[in-house]
């Protein structure tokens, strides 16, 4: 959790918003968006970019922190950027949200069966094995990823890489509708 320089109440501090953004797929767009967040003092928790069904359009998913005023300003300021086609912030309950985590843990041959059991329990995959480590991958929502990480902590975490969250609306609705 990045520390916020703003003095806010505990409740506000944890208020995370997922913002889906469709943008023109050309150079410089990401820098305009990240620059805007930095300049206006909006705190980014995670950010993920990828191309959509239309190769000229990319989707950026940003999880940002702030109160309602901040969220409204974020959306309005993003909408002013010419390269942004659509901005939509979606409530957590209406969201299908996933993040991919790669996690390398210390693991001797004796410990391997235990680790495999945890992986199976959590729906993770063993991606790589060495004499003293195992690398696992898990794609899931925030709560389950956090639980998985907690379960692996006792083994000794060597390294973690996370993609940041991507999200779609649940049901038949889409960002453009």
């Amino acid at each position, binding site marked *: 959790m990045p520390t916020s320089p703003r003095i806010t109440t505990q409740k506000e501090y944890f208020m995370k918003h997922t913002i889906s953004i469709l943008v023109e797929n050309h150079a410089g767009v990401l*820098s305009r968006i990240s*620059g805007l967040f930095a*300049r206006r003092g909006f705190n980014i928790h995670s950010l993920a970019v990828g191309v959509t069904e239309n190769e000229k359009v990319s989707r950026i998913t940003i999880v940002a922190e702030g109160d309602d005023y901040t969220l*409204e*300003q974020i959306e309005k300021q993003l*909408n002013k950027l010419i390269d*942004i086609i659509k901005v939509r912030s979606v409530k957590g309950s209406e969201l299908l949200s996933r993040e991919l985590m790669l996690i390398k843990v210390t693991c001797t041959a004796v410990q391997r069966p235990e680790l495999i059991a945890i992986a199976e329990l959590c729906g993770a995959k063993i991606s790589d094995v060495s004499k003293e480590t195992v690398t696992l991958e898990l794609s899931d929502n925030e709560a389950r990823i956090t639980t998985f990480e907690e379960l692996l902590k006792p083994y000794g975490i060597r390294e973690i890489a996370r993609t940041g969250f991507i999200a779609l609306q649940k049901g038949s609705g889409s960002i453009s509708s």
Partner: protein
Amino acid sequence: MSNVSNKSKQITAARALVNCLALEKVSTVFGYPGAAICPFYDELSKSNIEHILVRHEANAGHAASGYARITGKAAVCIATSGPGATNLITAIATAYMDSIPMICITGQVNTDQIGKDVFQEADITGAVESFVKHSFLIKDAQDLPETVRKAFYIASTGRPGPVLLDIPIDVLRTDIDFDNVKYMEQVDIRGYKPNFHGNKLQIKRVIEAIETADKPLICAGGGLFNREAYKLMRQFAEHADIPVISTMMGISALPTEHPLYYGMIGMHGKGIANRAINNCDLLILLGARVNDRAVLALKNNDSLKVIHIDIDPAEIGKNLPASIPVVGDLRAVLEQLLEQLPKKKHENWKKLLKTDTGSDTLDMPSKTDKINPKQFINILNRLLPEESVIVADVGQNQIWTANNISLSEHGRFITSGGMGTMGYSVPAAIGAKKAAPEKEVIAICGDGSFQMQMMELATAIQHNINIKIIIMKNNRLGMVRELQQNLYNNNCTAVNLDGSPDFVKIAAAYGINGDYVTDIKQADKALITLLASKKPYLLQINIDENEKTM
């Protein structure tokens, strides 16, 4: 421009850029050349477009800003790569803060050298990121015409602002197909669809609020100068009998002597305007973003209803919560409102404002060896032609002018409102005069700000641009000095301008006539000479170094 224009033909991108400017009806541009932009200058010289050579790139931007504010259309400034482009940044930021439509063309190093830190390379699109409405680095010459078209469209529609076009020299030299007819086709940018008309339901709510308000007040902002919306604001205010105050940017939206006008609000505004905003029950913000210096006056007033009409949705609710937000083009929204606006009378409210007991009397005693600036501006008001443009610089001179200048319905007040950029007045006056040669254009500045722009005297002389300059000389950075007196225990440091030259002699060195005013009795005669001059003219008026802003 060639008559055989329907067929597309191969020309260099530099030539195409000149053609684009001609098709956008650009007749004057402001700039300063350098190696990377040379292919464009080569073609520009063969066109009918007039180029005004400034003496510093920032001033090309300020001149374009002054020009755009008078014409209401996007104005063009040009600089070369590297230091030329970075010098332009202050002017771009200044235009951005005041929402001025501007096209900034910068040269760039060869495409294959970008990112290699070659001679005079600067990542200007990166550097101006937070000061532009949008920017383009044109890497494919074939994209140039469409990009230029988009740039003009983006700069001049919605909330206006500067758009930067960065063009590598090899791109300028590349042959491309250019078709005049195709160029003029309508622009469509899927991520950019500014609102135009106000939401009908919101319009109805505005009308209802005006119907029921006892003490309504209009706050006029700089947005009113877009598409001459200020003319409709006047009809609106007169029809519903609503008093008007203005932000610094909104000065001259209503004639100063109009019975409904109560002056500028804010930290340095008129007491009566600030008291009006605290006593009204309905505040109607028109194209004003109510920044910190303006809104300082507004105390917590729970019963106050705020109508905020602005083209930029992000401004609504940013600094002040709005009870009735209306997003749209001010002119279009005012037209919608005028169709249904009730005829009202607010005699009691106006009487309350008139009998306002606060002291607003101008401190205007004559001095023996120095000039009272307020008194001087009052004499200027008496002599000023109806059609005048006053360009105030930044500092005490700006506030003295803003609070005391009297402009008719044909007059216009221009200043760097949002950014407070010193050195704006002379180049902006040059731009304004090019846009309206028939009008009297006067730059009023301090001796501090003048020394940030005095090289532009050469521009005025070289291009026969008949601007007038009044320097309020107090040998101080007066406003900072005042701040130091009030907040820093009277520790006045780095605000003494000792070593400044005799500005009348400086003017003379450029071949510009001028005079001194050291006694208020000389002011009439000096101003008559200044206004009668058919060439640039400069007045240096001596102000008491301890003269207060308010």
